[in-house]
């Protein structure tokens, strides 16, 4: 049972995995807080894509509901994270995430 556009389910999942891995690599190699947040957004959207695709694959509405939740979560996360970014730049005069490792764990 294919989706109307005719894109195979597997391809969508591959795309989601690639997007997720891009996000992971971004988090691991980027030091700038803004880019880390961007990478997180990419990962979340990869998850959302996987949900949509799965919902379409089995004809269930749950996938789309889950995407709604992810959107709400992303909005909230961005609100908090941007606050943290502002604080970080005020305190340390930089956006380098490693500057905030003073407590060393």
């Amino acid at each position, binding site marked *: 049972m294919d989706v109307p556009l005719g894109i195979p389910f597997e391809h969508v999942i591959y795309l989601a995995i690639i997007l997720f891995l891009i996000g992971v690599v971004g988090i691991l190699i980027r030091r700038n807080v803004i880019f880390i947040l961007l990478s997180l957004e990419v990962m979340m959207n990869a998850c959302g894509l996987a949900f949509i695709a799965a919902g379409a694959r089995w004809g269930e509405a749950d996938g789309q509901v889950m995407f709604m939740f992810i959107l709400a979560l992303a909005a909230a996360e961005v609100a908090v994270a941007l606050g943290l970014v502002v604080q970080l730049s005020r305190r340390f005069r930089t956006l380098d995430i*490693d500057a905030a490792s003073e407590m060393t764990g």
Partner: protein
Amino acid sequence: MSMLWIVPALPLAGFLILFVTEGKLPKMAVAAIGAGSVGLSALVALFVGIEFMGSGSTSYAQDLWTWMAVGEFSVPVTLYLDRLALVMVGVITGVGFLIHLYATGYMWEEEGYSRFFAYMNLFVFAMLLLVLGDSLLLLFLGWEGVGLCSYLLIGFFHTDPANGYAARKAFVVTRVGDTLLILGLFLLFREIGTLDIQESIAGAKEAWPNGSTMNTAIALLLLGGAVGKSAQVPLQTWLPDAMAGPTPVSALIHAATMVTAGVYLIARMQGIYLLSDTAMLCVAIVGLVTLFIASFTALVQSDIKRVLAFSTMSQIGYMFLALGVGAWSAAIFHLMTHAFFKALLFLASGSVILSLHHEQDMFKMGGLWRKLPIPFWCMAIGSAALVALPLTSGFFSKDAILLTASHSENYGMWLWGGAVAAAFMTSLYTMRMMVITFFGETKMEPHDPSKANMWLPLLVLAALSIGGGWLGFSVLEELFHDGGVHGGLHLDDPIAWATMAVPLLGVAFGYFVFATKAFDRRGMVESAAGKAVGKYWFTGWGFDWIYDTLVVNPFRWLARLNKNDAVDYIFRFTSLVARILHNLLSITQNGRLRWYALTMFAGLLFALVVVAII
């Protein structure tokens, strides 16, 4: 007689009060509690004693409670009073009270007044437990309590490390004897199956024929315990060092009561000893050897308290000799009179020492007899009893011992001869001590600290030292059904004449040597041989040297070798491993967010791979 339990309870109560209040009570209250508890205890003991003697029974047992019960084995806490225990209780509480009273004055200026009396009361309690205990286990409890208190009191002036060493030495040396004692108790329990004193003696009489090996072994092990506590050869080295304690402690523990615990033990277990001639002979020989060694050592000491310490050893040697020849009541009689006159000698010498600002060297004293009349006359009376001048208390008791020894079947005349020769030495060193301390030219100006609470006990003890002999006859008659004490003078017996004459000869000779200038003893003392012998005697016949070489120094060497404790390496290795692991893990906690994320994803990947493989 039902008041018997109060006798040990009062000193215990005194100890607990002084212990709990931690020295916050005023000194007068401490003195009242410390001396009062023992005084009241002595009064109760007196009433109990009168009632007991009046009742005509031979023993009285008071069950208090069950100490422990395991299966069929149970140890009741039972107080057992017979004439032997009565004499001991009388000596402990009576003489103990006089010494406590004296100590209230003697220790007045010292730090730790309350602590001192707490220990003293605990000591009296432990000693009472020892003599009143109905089972050998209870006796052993008191025995160990006495050892503990002796440790605490010898090291009472704890700011000087030398005193701590003396205290440890006393504790460890007596511990050797205690180990032998407890081995003897184990053996007795295994063979007879009870630790009740009367039952075990009766059981031993049934189980073993005369002279059986097991019985002899037990008797000798018990003798080992007695030798340790009573400072007899070969475990005598702790007693002279124990003089580091305050003088009332020396009087109470190291003269009047604790060192007699060994004598009591053997007298109490006489049923065991009577079954073994070998053990009896060993007791007599231990006594005689100690008697000799201690007399010669006392002759060359310069510290007045050490002279008295060695004379204590030799007098207890007399008691062991008496026990060894079966003169039980003579031994206990001498124990009692010795408690009187040795306490008197120690307390009087304490007065001398205190008046000279804690000077104990006899050669720095001299000419004190006019300036310190009470201590002088008390010392003179005590010395008279010590050398057994006729009609003093020491005369009757020592006479009883020597006469019984001379009639003994086991080498009787040899024992008698040795003991009489030692009696001559006793006279000699006593004269030396008296002459050097009290006569000649004055070297130090004494200040007389006489207070009523100090000279009153001296006078009472002096009276007892003279008249105590008659006190003994009434109580001690038929004590052990061995004919009692042969009191009075035996004018028809040449041995009795010799026994009586030798101390007099000794005193006369001592006077000739030490007090007159007719005899030049410098030449003898200062010749090379004289010096060598004097030095040898001074060190107590080299026993300390032997023990230091054989035991103490090898042990120290081993301890130094094992300074880092080989066993500890195992545990130190465990802690090292834990520390390395900790360091490894703490590296990962570096505070870098991306590192944490990486490890998280690595862990996730790992989990996925594991799931995929499985």
